[in-house]
């Protein structure tokens, strides 16, 4: 009950009052669907594709990130800028609110709520809901823009388009597996990274924590490894599509582990923290 009361306050101050920041997700969808549409036009001109594509094609294009990278002097490394901006966008949105709320109103709020652990749980739930809201906005706006580009309102994929763009044959992958690697896993991994960032922002500072998150995402594009979980947010790095890719199950386990670890560590931290 205490947590719900605190969460209601956090959602109001930390999400609703700052909802203008989520326009970033709309801009991301606008740019990525535009790029996808241009790519589709090129594919159609070459007579490799005959339909207008589906909203799922647009979504997969938007969330693709970057192919598995292996160092090659002839192949320069380039950060997938749009994916990077999308990921650090939510990290920026959640970067400052919680720490500022503690430093500005922590005494009033904690003493009124009368629970340190409820306060921390509320901040975690606020962070999780913020990430979900961000993804929902991105997905909905992606669907809207895709429809405006003439896509079919279908969750099926256009194999020939994805084959041309990514070089992957999607026909042998089940639809449920695709949903796991392209929707569920990126959302869960983004939530877990944001929760770690939230905890570090209290222990170090919001700026340091945000910088560490940015560094993590950059490293995640360069190296594909389970300990750099940013890679899991790029569905094309899944082991379904690349033989050296990441196993989605390990991503789900890492996300669950991080959420539980952050809750326990944060709870311990706030139970013993002096509020000065």
């Amino acid at each position, binding site marked *: 009950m205490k947590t719900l009361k605190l969460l209601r*306050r956090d959602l109001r101050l930390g999400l609703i009052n700052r909802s203008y920041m989520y326009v970033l997700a709309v801009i991301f969808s606008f740019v990525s669907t535009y790029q996808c549409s241009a790519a589709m036009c090129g594919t159609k001109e070459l007579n490799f594709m005959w339909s207008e594509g589906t909203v799922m094609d647009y979504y997969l294009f938007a969330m693709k990130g970057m192919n598995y990278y292996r160092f090659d002097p002839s192949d320069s490394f380039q950060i997938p800028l749009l994916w990077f901006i999308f990921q650090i966008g939510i990290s920026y949105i959640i970067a400052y609110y919680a720490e500022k709320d503690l430093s500005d109103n922590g005494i009033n709020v*904690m003493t009124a*709520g009368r629970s340190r652990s409820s306060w921390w749980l509320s901040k975690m739930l606020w962070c999780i809901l913020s990430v979900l809201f961000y993804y929902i906005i991105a997905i909905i706006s992606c669907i809207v823009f895709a429809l405006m580009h003439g896509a079919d309102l279908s969750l099926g994929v256009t194999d020939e388009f994805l084959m041309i763009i990514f070089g992957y044959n999607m026909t042998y992958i089940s639809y449920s597996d695709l949903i796991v690697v392209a929707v569920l896993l990126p959302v869960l991994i983004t939530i877990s990274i944001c929760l770690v960032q939230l905890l570090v922002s209290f222990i170090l500072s919001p700026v340091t924590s945000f910088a560490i998150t940015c560094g993590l995402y950059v490293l995640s594009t360069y190296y594909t490894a389970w300990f750099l979980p940013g890679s899991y947010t790029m569905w094309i790095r899944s082991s379904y599509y690349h033989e050296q890719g990441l196993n989605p199950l390990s991503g789900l386990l890492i996300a669950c582990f991080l959420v539980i670890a952050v809750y326990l560590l944060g709870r311990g931290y706030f139970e013993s923290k002096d509020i000065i």
Partner: protein
Amino acid sequence: MSEIRIEGLNKSIKGAVILKDINMTLTSGKIYGFKGKNGSGKTMLMRAISGLILPDSGFVIINGRELHKDITFPQSMGILIENPSFLPQYTGLKNLKLLADLTDNISIKDIRIALERVGLDPDDKRTYRKYSLGMKQKLGIANAIMGEPDIIILDEPINALDEESAHNIKKVLLEIRDRDKLIIIACHDKEELEFLSDIIYEIKDGSIIDRKDIADEDA
């Protein structure tokens, strides 16, 4: 009836001793004054009583329940420590409403009464960012006294207040005390502190060096 019992309380922060072997028992129906120079430990003692800092050793026991063991914070407490801080985009009423929503027992009527008692208009449409220093201080006091909690902790409550407002706040605090509440205040002004307090503790370098019973002296 509230009782705060402090036994052998010690606290150091980054190697500096902040509170040293504090022992005291505070009971309701009295105003306790904490006196001391800047940095003497008055505010830290208030923070320890309110559950904001954790003791290195010793206990703070409130109505028989130990802080940080049986309870995280005192169950019925209003607090103003150092500068009041509220959300700048909201009015005073809205700010207090947001905080009252976190508790179970403070109604909008209680909030309006608290604001009126400290001399603020509950229907004032100005946001907190447009408040003067004195108005901010009054809002901080209103926050501490709304719903008349059993324990009220006020650090420098009459700072930044004009003479008339300070007189009004003192009157309000005495009224609340007479309704069997326990009030703790810290104040630089010796005369004000002696006027308000029933018992004064003098604190120096984190230790209590004197206890003065004002009621006995008056008698």
